């Protein structure tokens, strides 16, 4: 579904991502791990269109999409969440979700003034969709709360909720379990599995929690120093000396 070929991102002299190639097969939950600074989030930012690559290709469903703007990626079905939650703090939880669905008639000024019935009926269905998502995430009671008042874990859930308001095919999750208490991590794990089953999303997820990676991901891709170090099942990754070396540094191995 997604194939990254020789992707590079250089910031001045820093080679954040260098000749990185991997692919994500449809229907999988592909894990992306690696030490801090390995270039995982930078790779995500390029796939999601937030950063133009320095060079290389990003093939999505056979088409090279490298360098397209974020909203183009979104409309092709690539949706991402953020490592640090990007909630709209002064808007309600419900509004945070209602913002997301694409091509709402009410986003066109003209329609709001001259075809209000269509705007109103879509608003109603978007609201129901958002309420469904809130029930799925079991945060319906926070519907009218300002998103800025949520706890860290609840904001993570809201990030996940945003992906449910789209026609996503590929969902990029950037550390969905970081800074979340262990019980909630288990819940988020279940939700990811359910979204895969019920909605047919393909996931690619960055995570440092190896239990979560082990429980969800196959295959697992290990990145180090801007490139792919290896790829395989979690067991293969665990037993590969190069991975240990990358995480702990050369001398320790």
């Amino acid at each position, binding site marked *: 579904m997604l194939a990254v070929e020789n992707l590079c991102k250089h910031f001045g002299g820093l080679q954040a991502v260098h000749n990185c190639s991997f692919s994500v097969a449809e229907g999988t939950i592909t894990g992306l791990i690696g030490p801090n600074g390995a270039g995982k989030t930078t790779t995500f930012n390029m796939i999601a269109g937030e950063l133009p690559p320095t060079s290389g290709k990003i093939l999505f469903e056979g088409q090279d999409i490298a360098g397209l703007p974020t909203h183009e990626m979104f409309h092709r079905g690539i949706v991402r969440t953020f490592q640090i939650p990007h909630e709209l703090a002064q808007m309600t939880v419900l509004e945070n979700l209602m913002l997301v669905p694409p091509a709402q008639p009410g*986003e066109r000024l003209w329609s709001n003034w001259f075809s209000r019935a269509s705007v109103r009926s879509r608003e109603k269905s978007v609201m129901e969709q958002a309420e469904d998502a809130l029930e799925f995430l079991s945060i319906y009671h926070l519907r009218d709360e300002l998103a800025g008042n949520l706890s860290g874990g609840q904001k993570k859930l809201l990030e996940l909720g945003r992906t449910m308001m789209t026609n996503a095919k590929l969902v990029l999750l950037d550390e969905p379990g970081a800074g979340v208490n262990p019980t909630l991590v288990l819940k988020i794990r279940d939700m990811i599995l359910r979204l895969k089953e019920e909605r047919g999303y393909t996931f690619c997820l960055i995570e440092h929690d190896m239990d979560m990676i082990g429980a969800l991901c196959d295959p697992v891709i290990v990145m180090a120093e801007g490139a792919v170090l290896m790829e395989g099942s979690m067991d293969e990754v665990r037993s590969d000396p190069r991975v240990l070396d990358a995480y702990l540094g050369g001398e320790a191995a």
Partner: protein
Amino acid sequence: MDALYGYSLYFISLLTMGGIYAVLCLGLNVQWGFAGLFNAGIGGFFAIGAYVTALLTTAPSARHIGGFEINTLVAYGLSMLAAGLVAWGVGKVCLRLRSDYLAIATIGAAEVVRLIFKNETDYTNGPRGVSAIPKPFETLPEPWNHIAFLVIVLIAVAIAFWALQIAQRAPWGRVMTAIRENEPAVRAAGKDVEQFRMEGFVLGAMLMGLAGAFMAQYLKFVDPNLSDPLTATFLVWVMLVVGGSANNKGAVIGAVLIWTLWSASEIVTGRLPDEWAVRTAYARIFLIGLMLQVFLQKYPLGIFPEQRPRPPRSSRESA
């Protein structure tokens, strides 16, 4: 009785100018309050609207192009269109700039507009301006001519207010608020942020153009000083900030309130002793600055702070 009649005329003119400024201020509210775009060249769009109406509605004259004598309503539309088109062009180049750079760029654009009107003497009569601009209903007996024009301005304020209230509560306004809150999140939600910014910038400029058209008719005269940064740009900012940014009611009330104070300050400074006369212009500016301070100390978010629409009622029993 005569004094009372004089006061009434003053009151009508106060409301008319307040209404024209309310349209300007609503335009700035779309740009700054909704879209977060720092336009420091309001006077440019205002002057474009004024000149378009001036040149298109006047009788033939040897001093400037014209003689089209077109219908007032069409002139309003074309004034808005012209200001909107220029805003689109400026926006294409400048909207990617961050706030402070955008401010500088819009100051520049307004200055370019002023210099064009000033120096293209064959078309605009240069610094001597365009006079004898027809004003709707001016043939009615006094005071009905003034009242009729006031009514036109008030209708425009009402329509603009209504349209912006709807836009702000609609999904369009939701996207606008979200862009100010967290731009990357809105991009990740698949919205074309540049497109929305552009819509806000152009819509705001169109309202400023309409205000310019009213001003041309009200004064029956335009010259390049119409884009004066003090009265056409700075004063509008004070109005919006005092009234309440991102609040349409705040924009309208701020405009009328500050215009009243500005106008009244002339009465006060006019009574100062003669040796102070040369300084009165500066004293008024000082008073406006002082007023801005006082209001902001008391109402840091403006008299009417931004209000998000109430959450829609739930379609289901609380879970």
